[in-house]
């Protein structure tokens, strides 16, 4: 509660894009994804479980990631998510889309 999370009105699909990007560097479990997101974004982006896990489920459904249980640090069993080839393709195309979109937004902000 009260914890800053990814803003709910973030562009739809952005969270999924970020997750795909993070997984591109190697398999991670849910907690790891949340931590890495926080780290990389210098604590700006914090994702809550109620957004993170449904997003992961959507990615599973679309076949962009696969999940497997494995041992984690501290000897706990955690579910690790890996990027699939489909997911890699999706990441590339979404990234271009996103860049285009951001570019467009910035253009608007600068000129209008």
């Amino acid at each position, binding site marked *: 509660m009260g914890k800053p999370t990814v803003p709910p009105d973030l562009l739809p699909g952005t969270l999924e894009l970020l997750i795909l990007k993070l997984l591109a560097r190697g398999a991670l479990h849910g*907690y790891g994804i949340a931590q890495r997101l926080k780290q990389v974004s210098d604590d700006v982006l914090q994702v809550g*479980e109620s957004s993170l*896990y449904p997003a992961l489920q959507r990615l599973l459904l679309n076949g962009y990631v696969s999940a497997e249980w494995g041992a984690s*640090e501290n000897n706990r*069993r*955690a579910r690790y998510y890996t990027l699939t080839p489909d997911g890699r393709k999706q990441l590339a195309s979404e990234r271009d889309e996103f860049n285009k979109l951001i570019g467009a937004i910035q253009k608007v902000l600068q000129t209008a």
Partner: protein
Amino acid sequence: VRKLLRRLAYWWRRRRNDRELELELEVHRLLHRDALEQGGLAHAEADHASRRALGNVLLAREESREAWLGRRLDEISQDLRYGLRFFLRNPGFSLVGVLILAIGIGANAGVFAVMDALLIKRLPVERPAELFFLRQRTSNNSDDAFSYQAFGDFRSAARGHAEIFASARTEAVPIFVDGGPETVHRKWVSGNYFSALGAHAALGRLFAAEAERPAPGEPVAVLSEAYWQRRFGGDASVVGGSLVYMNRPYTIVGVAARGFFGETLGEAPELWLPLTARTDAPSYVWSGHSNTWLRVLGRARDAERARAERVLEAAFERLREQRLGQASLTERQALRESRLVIQGASGGISPLRDNLGAPVVVAMGIVACVLLIACANIATLLLERGRARERELALRIGIGASRARLVRQLLTEALILALVAGTVGLLLAQLFGSRLLAAALSGLPNTVRLSPSLGVRAVVFTASVSVLASVLCGLLPAFRATRAGLAPTLKTSAGLTRGASWLGPGLVAAQLAVSLTLLTAAGLFVRTLQTLAAAPLGFDPDGVLLFQVTTTNVPGREVSYRQLLEAAERLPGVRAASLSAFGSFGGGSWGNRITVEGYTPAPEELPRTYANAVSPRFFEVMGLPVAAGRSFTASDDKGAPGVAMVNQTFAARFFGGENPVGRHVGLGRTAERMLEIVGLVKDAKYEDVREEQRPMLYVPALQYGGAQRELQLSVTPDVPVSPTGLLKNLAQAEPSLAVVDVMSLRARVDRSLLPERMVARVAGVFSLIALTLACVGLYGVVSYAVSLRTTEIGVRIAIGATAGQVIWLVLRKGALVVGAGLLAGLAASWLVAKAIAGLLHGVPPTDPGAFAAAVVLLVGVAAAAAYVPARRAARVDPIAALRSE
């Protein structure tokens, strides 16, 4: 698609997935806790903090599930659960509902299976859509039989555009396969028959080009899969073996694929022989057009079809010109009018379809009406349920369910009901369908088989009908039930604020209207059947057994008909025996040109008559009264002067009604031998109850060279005679003769009424079911009206109303409904009667008897249905009624 599969997989393991997610969230928390502890927090504190940080776990789980299944699916499964619960809680209602709908759906499934077999199913061959068959049609007649010569002409004309092939009608004949004679259904076909039809072999090969012309060696034969299984137990070594038919050995080259029955629906041939093997047939079979024994079919690719039709039509024109030269006056008229009709044959050709097609469509309409009534019935039941559930539904609206959601829920319930009923209906159709069909089709000749089965199409049809039924019976009640505003319903005790609804009575009136229509139609069909059954036959059809016989051609044996008759008359229970060349009611007919002494034909008229060759006691056995002169005797044999007998129509046409005894007649255009007419026989029906009176000439069997095809036995009614016992004795008495079919003359006559009987039965049974359902509905509506007015009735009784007055009060309500139904039903009946006029015989479509009977029956049963609740109302205890409020 892969996504859908993943969805399904998820749904399949939804419990496990949910648990996994829960576990995952817990791990997430624990990892967080570990991190906090490493950061220096105490265990307990870290635990607490991690729990706080986790946020809404349930929401995460819910949303995860939604990501997979979507909101829809989740809600649908909820609807299904609610629905099932509803039915389990109301077992009585569910049972009645399922039963009513199951009758409606089952009847539809059953009749559909027949319709499918008869009208829809394609032939089990390659690309059936390319097949067509030839017919010649005149203004009032259609004929699909052609001569061998015509077949050859068509075939050579169409060469390059279409492959033309031909086949004869299937006949029961005796053959010899290792040992004694046995009867099989044999079919003559052209050599290219199998290849052009696109058939496959189950074993060995099917004959082809080598069977096109008579070959020096043994001709070939193909067996049907069913016969091969039944007779040879599926033994593969049968290929290469041989069988003997008509003194001629045939080599069995193969077995046709399972389920292949040729081109004619209803036939079940067991043995196919190339028609070129008929070397013993007389020359008129091969040339000229007097003997039309072949059905001509063809196969053409779509691109060639139009051209093929043109060349075939041209060939038909040439054929007609040829035939015009040799035709009689009446024939010429018909010939000039005749046209070639090329019809698609993807579903096979079928005389059965011509006879039964329209009746089956009518039957389909009838059961569809029954289903409509059943739906209306369920709708009334659901309406009442809806009233009982008003509070429940109002409550659910109160706590936020949308109306659409509730309608969907109620529709889901109707759907569950209909699907269960559909399943039960299919089972009913499976259980009783074949039996009903057997009853409806009883008496088809034994070469005709129709085996409708509940295949994929029938199941798909039933499922769609069920869904349609659920919408029909669920939609109105669903909207009605959810229409209720929230406040008034929750406030009142039993939801009685609204005035009596018109919907329930309206539905009942509609049911009564449809019932009346069905009853009227049933009445008309029954009257048709009665009229035909009561038509005078001219002979006595009872106590006569008919045996179709054929010579087995046992080598070295000549059939002695005289010996056969003597042996037959010695059998116990047999009064008299006779033989004829052509059978009664379905044994074929013989038409011949004649020369009549003292009769001058009109210009261009060529006198013709129907004819038969009969043994001396034929008229006695058949109960055909001899009106003048004498009957044939044993001394009218080959050595004696030629004699003949004629019927009254013959005498009227050729002798102006004078006594024909002593006059002379000759067979053929220029008779070589004149026959003296020795007797006059009363008119009778010969092939069909509906036939026009025809002239008939009889010649003595002993003076006629051809084969005798039917043996008639007049049996005594007091000694029970089993046809099978007679068969055995006959086989012993004359081993060179094989009996291929036994039937009583009565059954033979009945068979000609098959379509009428089928329609009358279906209409009769289902109109009564419809009436019952409608009256159950009426009972329900009147009962409900009584229950609403119990208090009022109590008051009326308390202030002195008599029982009669109360009953009238209630009946008036029912009378209104019945009256409305009656008016609508009479209008509908009138329209339907006009539509089915073509199927009626001897009964005008506006037959007052049928209409009156239907109205009287409906009003009677409806009055009884309304009287029961009215009677109950009259017995209301005023004190109890007043207290209950």
